[in-house]
């Protein structure tokens, strides 16, 4: 009983963080594909000490983010309180709780890039997409975020657009990047 209450309670906190959370989905209605994936991750790391973070990494790797159902399922399967999973997920910046946008625009804000004007790239992106650092556009098309050094300081300031790295980015390049993705999307549609 205590455990159940604890799960419910942590879920309440959880709700406030996950803007798109719907009602608490019963385990049976969990997407079978997602469930199978989580089970495989669990199996892979079964019995190893301190495996929670690695399991969450696996889930995010394969799914792009850690959905709420997956955490609920993990809590039950591993016999640990949901609060513990939630505590870990929210502590580490790397874990995403909601689906990322279709196209990800990442600006490096490490020291080298900062000194060479990555702040201006961020402002330009925020202005053009009308979202803030770490947010996703309403149509879920674009997600932007700033990260620490991506390892190309030699080409600062650097940006990653859908896994492709661009170096020595000028503020005037930003509009073109967004426009190209938009055009691509339109021609695909």
């Amino acid at each position, binding site marked *: 009983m205590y455990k159940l209450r604890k799960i419910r309670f942590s879920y309440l906190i959880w709700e406030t963080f996950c803007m798109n959370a719907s009602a608490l989905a019963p385990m049976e209605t969990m997407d079978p594909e997602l469930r199978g994936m989580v089970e495989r991750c669990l199996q892979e790391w079964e019995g190893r*000490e*301190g*495996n*929670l*973070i*690695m399991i*969450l*990494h696996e889930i995010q790797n394969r799914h792009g983010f850690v959905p709420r159902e997956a955490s609920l399922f993990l809590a039950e399967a591993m016999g640990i309180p949901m609060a513990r999973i939630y*505590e*870990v997920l929210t*502590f*580490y*910046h*790397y*874990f995403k709780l909601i689906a990322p946008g279709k196209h990800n625009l990442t600006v490096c*804000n*490490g*020291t*080298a*890039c*900062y*000194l*060479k*004007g990555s702040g*201006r790239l961020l402002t330009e992106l925020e202005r053009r997409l009308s979202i803030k650092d770490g947010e996703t556009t309403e149509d879920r098309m674009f997600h932007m975020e700033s*990260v*620490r*050094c*991506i*390892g*190309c*300081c*030699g*080409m*600062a300031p*650097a940006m990653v657009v859908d896994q492709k*790295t661009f*170096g020595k980015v000028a503020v005037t390049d930003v509009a073109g990047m967004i426009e190209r993705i938009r055009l691509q999307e339109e021609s695909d549609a």
Partner: protein
Amino acid sequence: MPESVPVKAFQELLDAVPQVLFEQWIRIGMDTGGIAAGADRLWDVFEKECAVTGVEAVLQRTGTCGYAYLDPLVELKSSGHAPVLYGCVDEPLAVRIVREHLLGGRLIDDFVVAPRRRSKDLGEADNIVLVKDSSCEGEDRTATAQSLLLKALRHHGLQDRVQVVRALDMGIYKEGLVVQLLPSGVTYTNVLNRDLERIVEQSIRDRAIVEDLLFNEPDPQTRIVLRNCGSIDPECLDDALRHGAYAGFARALGQGSPGQTIDCIRESGLRGRGGAGFPTGTKWKLTRDVEADLRYVICNADEGDPGAFMDRSILEGDPHSVLEGLMTAAYAIGAGKGYFYIRAEYPLAVKRVELAIAAARKRGLLGKNILGSGWDFEVEVRLGAGAFVCGEETALIASIEGKRGSPHPRPPYPSVKGLWGKPTCINNVETLASVPWILTNGAKAYESLGSGNSRGTKVFAVTGKVRNPQLVEVPMGTTVSDIIYKVCGGVQDDVPIKGVQTGGPSGGILPEKHLETPITYENLQKLGSIMGSGGMLVMDENDCMVDVSAFYLKFCVDESCGKCAPCRVGGYQMLQLLLKISRGRGSEDDLVQIDRICEAMQSASLCGLGQTAPNPVLSSLRFFRDEYSAYIEGGTSYARKRKKALSEGKSMKEAV
């Protein structure tokens, strides 16, 4: 003396490694930086071109040799020439390299990177002359010099034996026209047009040195940690073994005396490269001396300093040396299990370490009864998840245990009570990568480098407003100005330098007048900075110290775990004050307040993050107080103008 079992087993293992000698090879620098610059596409181009033209050359993948500003890098050996390094290679150039260099035997102008080896002996017949104008002002004399050299060669009938090639980078700056003869490496600087004839006549025809032009200064760099980066395939154990990997470890294992191994490391004077600089041998001994049934070793590869990439480059370029270091540490302290704690943001490093572990296990270098010695050891990779504080030892341990990365008060130190309550030794990537070199070359050789209590070499990631951002490995005691001016070519666009930040968010700023300071742990500390993991950020006159301090402080505030109030509250309040000042709304009282908060954070924070977070602010206040005062006195109109100047990358004078 009979050989011990592990040494013999290792020799057998070595004997089984196929010895290959390729006549022609192409090495592509495929680290994260190189790949971002397009190195993976080059691979396909080279493969295709070699097939089309029928050129026989072996393609090899390597890590970076450190010249980040020249990515992507390709080194190649063709029959008839010494290895040549090309920088800034794109796809059309790759095609030309195969057709003109490999097939035609003719080096390509404007892309060759000169080796840093500078010799005083002409040795064997030189057949390449590299030429480059290293002064940055005035007209570029490279092309004129090239045609003059050609003319002189023709005059002596040497034009068929020797080629003259315009270089991309010589590693020598502000020394006028530079001419280098290859393969010998004899280098002439401040060459005038009329000297060119002499060089051809004396050095190329008669094989004699032109004494008055000879550049005698050796390169300030010494490569110990980066010894194999850029020359071995990080995903191939055979290649590592051919370059001497695991030999030192096998010998240590063969000695059968962990105490001797610890003594060797202690004698070498190696100190931790992760930040605090604790003597590594002593740390090993402390961990060994604690009674326990189980001990752990951890490699700290959670490189948190934003803008530093030494650890990543080492892991991507030579993972076996780090693994060998970790195995040696484990053997010395008697650990049965080791962990690599690597940032999840470094997928390529993770992949290469995992491959290295799997390959080592397959050959019996890991697992049960290693090399027949009866000693068992296992290694596992654990991923960080984007929390800077997890670089701190106790937080790192909590993270491996699968919990939030909150630091714990020390003592007990991890060497007494660490991972799962067992004695644990945590070492940085660079520290561990130095260990194999010490084992094979001896403690004395390592100890002979350096200055004062800082021995050996240190790798720095030099970035910011520097002409050539790159990885630099220099002996301790080298001055900051040597690194910036002699290795990295000075400041970008020749704007006067204002200062150099070392140690990342936990470090401080060295102003221009202190750049002649030899780098040692103690010297940096005296100046209010730290060695840190090795980030070195160059700032020029146009950069604003208040802004940079706020940037670092904001980083620490974002990354604070929130466990203790001095760091959580103090950091936030101080940031507000700094931002207030940078908006031109600050007062002298705010500076006093900042000082008080700094003191409280330094003395009362629980872990290193909070204790060192004030460092950038304190050191900028110490050396650049006038900039704070300018904001305070100038008010909002000054702040607006300053912001405008910054966003346009101009100096205050130009912008106003």
